[in-house]
């Protein structure tokens, strides 16, 4: 079965390798000027010298508006990549067997179709985890100078680092495997899996993530200026890497609700867990349906 899986998915494996190579090259090329500016402006030393980052505010802000902007321009494309990979690999896994009628040949061999599917899913999932981890590594390396200034909680960083990117990828893959089984057509299954994946991504990014953990509240005097945003350095809380979610003004104070910088991994694991539950549900349904299929 290992060889069978490899033979059927080696094209995708090579495609994934090529994608990683291309991504690494593009980001390597883009990172040159950024890394040069980061070292010549002495930003690293500046941040280290004043933990609150206040000492070199202007330089940090000009750096971020210049290079953060480049990444933000790519963001809309990059954010779709895990979903696209997932559905491109997942939809044909069963969809093409139906499309070409080969399921009748494949599932009438001595290896029962359930074992056939579970083995294939396990091996392909393994490959996707490696691919997701490699992409995460490339993105994390590229963003590391910016992340020293803004932390990893803004979604331009959070969605590409840690473990969530791999979880997004697996979730799209699982949706597409199930869609391939239900729709029996590869391309329709890709579309049918991608749309819910994108909707869920949007809902989690903009709706759920701020509520995974109850945000902390910081009390500032009314006189403090209200400005927050991904590239506001340092954030209103005064601590680099904190992610300000909102500000409420009362009679005497401003209440800043925020996620502290050191929540990164807790938030990562919570969000990845959510996607992995969806992944497991879709995969489990697919295996169950195929096992039970008219049985």
């Amino acid at each position, binding site marked *: *079965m290992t*060889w*069978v899986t490899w*033979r*059927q998915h080696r094209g995708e494996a090579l495609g994934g390798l090529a994608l990683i190579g291309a991504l690494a090259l593009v980001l390597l090329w883009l990172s040159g000027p950024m890394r040069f500016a980061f070292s010549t402006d002495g930003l690293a030393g500046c941040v280290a010298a004043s933990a609150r980052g206040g000492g070199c505010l202007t330089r940090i802000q000009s750096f971020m508006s210049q290079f953060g902007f480049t990444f933000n321009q790519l963001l809309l494309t990059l954010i779709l990549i895990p979903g696209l990979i997932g559905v491109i690999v997942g939809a044909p896994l069963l969809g093409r067997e139906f499309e*070409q*009628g*080969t*399921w*009748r*040949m*494949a*599932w*009438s*061999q*001595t*290896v*029962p*179709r*359930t*074992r*056939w599917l579970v083995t294939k899913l396990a091996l392909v999932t393994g490959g996707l985890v490696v691919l997701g981890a490699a992409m995460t590594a490339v993105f994390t390396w590229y963003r590391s100078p910016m992340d020293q200034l803004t932390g990893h909680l803004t979604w331009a960083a959070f969605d590409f680092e840690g473990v969530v990117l791999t979880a997004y990828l697996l979730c799209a893959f699982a949706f597409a495997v199930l869609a391939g089984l239900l729709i029996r057509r590869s391309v329709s299954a890709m579309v049918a899996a991608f749309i819910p994946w994108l909707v869920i991504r949007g809902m989690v990014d903009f709706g759920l993530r701020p509520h995974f953990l109850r945000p902390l509240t910081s009390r500032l005097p009314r006189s403090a200026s209200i400005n927050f945003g991904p590239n506001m350095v340092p954030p209103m809380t005064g601590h680099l890497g904190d992610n300000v979610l909102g500000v409420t003004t009362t009679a005497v104070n401003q209440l800043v609700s925020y996620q502290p910088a050191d929540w990164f991994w807790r938030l990562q694991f919570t969000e990845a867990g959510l996607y992995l539950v969806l992944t497991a549900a879709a995969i489990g349904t697919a295996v169950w349906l195929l*096992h039970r299929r*008219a*049985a």
Partner: protein
Amino acid sequence: MTPALQADRLGKRYSQAWALREATFEVPAGAVVGLVGPNGAGKSTLLQMTIGLLEPTEGRVAVFGATSRANRADTLGRVSYVAQDHPLYRDFSVGDMFRFGRHMNPRWDQALAQQRMKVLGIPLNRKIKRLSGGQQAQVALAMALAKRAPLLVLDEPVASLDPVARVEFMREVMAAVADTGLTVVIASHVVSELERICDHVIVLTEGRMQLAGQVDELVGCHWLLTGPRTGARAGFPGMVVHRADSDRHSTVLIRTHPGRPALPDWQTQPVGFEELVLAYLQRPAATTASDPDRAQRLPGSVTKAVSR
């Protein structure tokens, strides 16, 4: 001796509609069985339940005494199957397909598969999509034979092939039968294809069995009567299978005991295999299911072979 294939009131329902009902028959080891019926008669459903792709809704089917269960290695390993249009992975080479077969089947006979390709002149490194339809069918057949199962099931194996490829394919099947003593079930809606090779026949229409048995026996107990047109339905010694009336003459196919029936006013002729099968294919399924006195009229030896 354990029958190679045995079905007992086998039935399959898809949501509301029954694709097959009340199929009961036995096939001895070494038989070559033609499974005949129009498209949608339930042939593929019957075959898929036999080989372990589908689970029956009711009844059972057994291969060499072991009940077939869907999605189980023991059932799947007992039967080789060439599906309709002999599907293969188009971007695999022939060698890749055989390697696939080796990984998917514990008793795989690689030497046999390769030897067949050598004899047929099909290169192992050729991609499946570069092969002709006939060659693809031969690769599928080689895979089925290399699986080394005692029952070979072919679903419309030649429907998509040109006449020369059809003959070549059937010749290979028969050579394999002669070499190995395989039991073979061939589903087809082309009756003429089956006449030369089958010694048993099962006729299905609209999910019901019309006829099952050994070809020689069945031919021996059917007679074609020709005579002046008469309105009378009764008076024939046996069951009227099919009746065609022209202005002045009637042609009646009857099923009776072996031995030519003596009927004044009627010319009595033996019937050919193809004519016999076609007559049963033309019978509406509803009449067979509710023919009240049919069981009594049939000779005892073949009663069990026909659906009630």
